[in-house]
């Protein structure tokens, strides 16, 4: 397809190819293989202690998705202490092998999806997701995570990352206006929103969209803060942008407003330049 400006783009068709195999009757073996794959790809929440955590009631759930958002929660919130890991979401797909359903917890630094609980106020929970969740697992992820806690006036806050190239605006955005936050909220969310709402025709996809859709149809108050950044690797300036997003829950969540550079470095180290022409 050629665009208005003449460049040729290879577009994939949203219409799934007509699959004639689909019309053929499937045999039992196919059916079994399909069932096994589906089972392997299922998402489930595993609690670390033996006690049944289903009785845990939750009033605030903060979900961080993407390297900047998870870096922010780790450096600014979890580093304050007072949080303990209570469970994890186990899933398997072509890009997340390590978090398959084994009893062993993933090694530190490995991509994973961990649930934390605040020690002095157990109704505040946080989910830090650094692993890849495939498109077909997003719906189930939202169902499992939001279904695993008892909702007691629950409010969900989602922090997520997005690249600036995805953001559409009629005015050209210069580099010095980034990073910035945009929010989306469900109909039942009545709290204050810390930044402008996401303008049409922009949309969100992925895990944050799955969680927000789940909350919208089940009438759970929820808000998504999406940070648009033009830096490809996690960086401290982008992480700092999320500080505004957590002001709404500042009563429940204590933040370390100025983490030391040692802490920050741990979450931005990945962006070290390996080698280029000049170094």
């Amino acid at each position, binding site marked *: 397809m050629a665009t208005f400006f003449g460049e040729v783009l290879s577009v994939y068709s949203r*219409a799934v190819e007509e699959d004639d195999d689909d019309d053929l009757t499937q045999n039992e073996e196919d059916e079994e293989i399909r069932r096994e794959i589906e089972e392997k790809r299922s998402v489930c929440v595993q609690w670390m202690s033996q006690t049944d955590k289903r009785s845990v009631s939750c009033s605030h759930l903060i979900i961080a998705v993407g390297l900047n958002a998870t870096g922010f929660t780790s450096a600014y919130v979890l580093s304050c202490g007072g949080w303990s890991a209570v469970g994890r979401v186990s899933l398997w797909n072509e890009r997340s092998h390590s978090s398959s359903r084994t009893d062993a917890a993933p090694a530190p630094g490995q991509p994973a999806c961990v649930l934390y609980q605040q020690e002095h106020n157990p109704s505040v929970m946080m989910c830090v997701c650094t692993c890849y969740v495939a498109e077909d697992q*997003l719906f189930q992820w939202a169902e499992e995570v939001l279904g695993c806690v008892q909702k007691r006036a629950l409010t969900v806050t989602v922090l997520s990352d997005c690249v600036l190239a995805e953001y559409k605006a*009629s005015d050209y955005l210069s580099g010095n206006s980034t990073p910035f936050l945009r929010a*989306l909220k*469900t109909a039942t969310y009545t709290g204050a929103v810390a930044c402008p709402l996401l303008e049409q*025709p922009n*949309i969100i996809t992925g895990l944050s969209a799955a969680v927000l*859709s789940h909350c*919208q149809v089940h009438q759970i108050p929820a808000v998504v803060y999406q940070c648009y950044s033009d830096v490809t690797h996690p960086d401290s300036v982008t992480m700092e942008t999320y500080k505004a997003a957590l002001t709404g829950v500042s009563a429940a969540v204590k933040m370390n407003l100025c983490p030391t550079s040692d802490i920050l470095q741990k979450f931005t180290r990945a962006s070290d330049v390996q080698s280029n022409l000049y170094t």
Partner: protein
Amino acid sequence: MFISTGSGDPSFKGFTLVMPAVSVGNVGQLAVDLLISTLNMPKVGYLHTDCLIPMAGNNPYATCAEDASQLSTNAEVYSHSDLKLAVLQIRTPIIQTKVRSFRKLLVSWIKSCGFVKTVLLSSSHAYQRDDRQLLGTSLRYLLTPPLQKLEVQRVEELGWREMERISLFPDIPDSEQRLYIPGGGVTKALYTDCCTEDISMAVVLIFCSEGDNIADAFMLINHLNEWLHLLEKPTQGSVKWRVPPSWRLLFGSGIPPLLF
């Protein structure tokens, strides 16, 4: 699973359902956008399913700043009680492994709602047309047997053309004829399902290519309007459809001013 926005389930008794197939150029979805936007239809529920890729955004049909912050999801149902019209909008592709269960969900939902008829707006690759299809109009229709009895005369009066069946082996006389809708997504399978389930369904489709498909969407919706008379056609010119604000910036953001 259909989830109502209100307290009780809305009644769709005697309603006509219009829905898109996610197909080439997203023409069906664009046409449905025009319909919802122009008739200012209120949202009555969601089709909450794991078969579609999740997506969320603000109100795509916002008319003022107040209603701009209403959240919209990947599949929503809108209704117009005076016209007895329900519209399902699907905004994301179907997950490839779940096409079958999505069709099953749609068929059972259509059945349970008791729609008088269902219209599937779709499209098909223009480059795969055969010689017969290259001539004349690019619009085609298909009717399931229960609807054929009622409507075939009407659509023939309108001069509509039925989608041609293609020979399995061209140039061999008496070879098997079959329906072929390349790029139509679930169109063919859903049509076949509705035939076996005795559901009154019409497929209205257009041959097009991927690109700027706004013109195709206008053509398709005007074509549908000739049949269903959803909006009165003025004596001069064509129906004034309202383009929703979500169609802005189709070719990306603004251009850096320093370029000039």
